């Protein structure tokens, strides 16, 4: 009898738990009635100027479209994928999702995103740069509108180079090593006071993307053309990683230095980073930003150059009951021209220091883009290697990061590190 009571109580508790759990799914912030639809947009634009820039566009849309109202929701970039995962699984999925291009494979495998209408797919294929289209394409499928495309180039501090008697930025790897040696300053204990070259550890993009830019500059590729095999364990890959290691061995680079802080403080003379950094440097360096120059990432020979492209995109959730309205809003924001002749997304991206993915936007805004430092990033849109966004893209990137760090710290040889990383990447690519 006692067990029976306990059993009933347990059954009651389980039923209540399931009822509670089911209450928490579905619905979300979406409200619909016969004449009004509210769409939710989940982004990582949680801080200004990103937050206010997006909100300005949304406010304009909401004012002119009373029947389709848009609501923004923002989390930090670090929480974005987790938030998408949890909300999608829990049935509280947003109608529109902004995502990092590298996650495209994961999202596509789980059928999170709806297929864009044919006219939107054509618009993206025709009117966006090669790098932008590559960043939103998985297995030949377009996932959404590229909202932001980033490429890599070499940042250098003109003042630090001039103090060391260098008047021209380096054009080859040998020149980078030479300039770095001239610029580096150490104290009596051997601590680096000014690093000739900046390498950052502990952050996957900061470790892997500069390496891949150097790899492309040496004529290499990340993965094979058909995307089924790792291609970085090649003479070009070995040369790129040996070059980075040689800078550490020569004590002109130290991965322990936080380059994101040290470069604006003029304690690092050269480093490879993406175009978004221009906006951050302007804010951090103020007048000293005039000391910053940008050139394409050089390769082993004069004329070689390389870059990596990645981006963010906005797609429509497959579970959204308002896909048509969501695409309508995205099309207005990303494809229709605004008062300045560029799309609203293009103008917004430019205002925060990012190169728009639509070349037509760059042309429309040409008069406003006066900073010559943007030029190498815009040019790189045409030759940069798109970051592969296959189904295990993030894991492959992390695996490569660990191998590169292994070489930097001397725990692995270049050959061993690239062979291990390629073996794991091959397994992940074939299991994808």
């Amino acid at each position: 009898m006692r067990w029976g009571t306990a059993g009933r109580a347990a059954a009651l508790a389980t039923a209540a738990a399931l009822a509670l759990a089911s209450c928490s799914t579905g619905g979300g912030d979406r409200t619909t009635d016969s004449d009004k639809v509210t769409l939710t947009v989940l982004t990582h634009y949680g801080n200004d100027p990103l937050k206010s820039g997006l909100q300005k566009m949304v406010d304009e849309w909401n004012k002119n479209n009373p029947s389709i109202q848009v609501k923004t929701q923002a989390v930090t970039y670090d929480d974005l994928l987790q938030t998408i995962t949890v909300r999608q699984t829990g049935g509280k999925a947003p109608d529109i999702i902004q995502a990092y291009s590298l996650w495209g494979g994961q999202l596509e495998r789980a059928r999170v995103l709806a297929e864009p209408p044919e006219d939107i797919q054509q618009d993206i294929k025709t009117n966006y740069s090669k790098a932008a289209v590559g960043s939103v394409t998985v297995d030949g499928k377009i996932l959404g509108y590229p909202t932001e495309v980033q490429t890599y180039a070499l940042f250098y501090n003109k003042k630090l180079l001039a103090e060391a008697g260098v008047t021209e930025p380096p054009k080859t790897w040998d020149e980078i090593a030479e300039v770095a040696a001239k610029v580096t300053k150490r104290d009596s204990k051997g601590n680096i006071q000014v690093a000739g070259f900046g390498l950052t550890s502990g952050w996957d993009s900061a470790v892997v993307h500069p390496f891949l830019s150097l790899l492309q500059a040496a004529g290499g590729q990340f993965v094979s053309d058909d995307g089924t095999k790792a291609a970085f364990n090649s003479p070009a890959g070995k040369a790129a990683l040996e070059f980075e290691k040689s800078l550490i061995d020569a004590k002109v680079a130290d991965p322990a230095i936080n380059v994101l802080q040290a470069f604006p403080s003029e304690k690092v003379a050269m480093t490879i980073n993406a175009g978004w950094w221009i906006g951050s440097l302007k804010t951090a360096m103020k007048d000293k930003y005039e000391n910053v120059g940008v050139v394409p990432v050089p390769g082993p020979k004069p004329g070689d150059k390389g870059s990596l492209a990645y981006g963010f995109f906005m797609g429509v959730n497959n579970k959204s009951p308002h896909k048509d309205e969501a695409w309508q809003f995205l099309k207005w924001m990303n494809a229709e021209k605004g008062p300045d002749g560029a799309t609203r997304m293009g103008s917004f991206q430019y205002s925060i220091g990012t190169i728009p993915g639509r070349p037509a936007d760059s042309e429309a805004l040409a008069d406003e883009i006066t900073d010559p430092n943007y030029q190498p990033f815009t040019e790189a849109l045409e030759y940069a290697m798109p970051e592969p966004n296959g189904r295990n893209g993030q894991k492959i990137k992390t695996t490569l990061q660990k191998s590169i760090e292994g070489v930097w710290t001397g725990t692995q040889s270049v050959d061993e590190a690239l062979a291990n990383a390629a073996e794991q990447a091959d397994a992940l690519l074939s299991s994808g």
Partner: protein
Amino acid sequence: MATVLHENEQRSPRGGASRRAGSVPSGMAKARRREAIVAYAFLSPSLLFFAIFLILPLIFAVVLALSAWGGFDLTQIEFVGLDNFAEILNPASTFVAPILVNTLVFAAGSVVLTLVASVVLANAINRLRFQGFWRTLYFLPIVTTVAAVGNIWKYLYEPSGGLINGVLNALGMSSVRFLADPDTALPSVVVVQAWASLGTAILILTAGLKNIPETYYEAAELDGAGSWRMFWNITLPLLRPTLLFVLITQVIAGLQSFALIIVMTGGGPGDATNVAGFEMYQQAFNFGMWGIASAMALVLFLIIFAITLLQLWLFRQRGEETS
């Protein structure tokens, strides 16, 4: 006692005891049943909480450990048997070495440091005035966010300009690349984990010290025992139940903890500071490999379970009551 109370309660109202004397056994059973129902009704919020946040996730984790699932859509869970376990326990996998090895080193290192330091400090505090102040002082890291603790220690460890290297340089020594060198990165984080755990251990141990009767020390003193002898022969043996509690809770916390590692090293350089908790988090939330992450969680659970049983057994061998 409960039965007596029930009988008294049944007799008291309106003098009905004699009238119902013949039906006492069935009445008692009914009362017990009612009592049980009331008890379960009161327990139901906790049971509900327990079911939602422990039992259901546990069952889900076991299901996922035997499946391949990329997240997002529960209808796409695919049964794969023991494949996930075969993958993570494969000699070529990094999960066993270095990740599990790092996890054990991290837990053991931080527990040993915490225990030794907390026993010494608790013993010292027990002899000081203003004990509350000292306990509060050592407890402060516990109420400070891990992000703040981790970042401050990162600055202290900086190769150029960090306080610790500044002191080393002033003493004529070269800088140590604490977090950048794979050989020193894990021990450096272990020190911080131990420092951050000291407060709880000291709080519990000082309470344990207060339970040791002062007369033992007085008698030992009369017999001519010194401080060390008293500590070794009185304090330590009588503190053993408290030490066991601190040891078990700290080992479990050490094996599961990865917040400091996220903040201070991100598991690097390479996999030098990667631990099981962080790897699971990466596999699930960053790589979308929930099956692998769940299999890792179950392996870690078994390790924690085995270590806890071993600790209990060892203390029992020494005659320690643990319940």
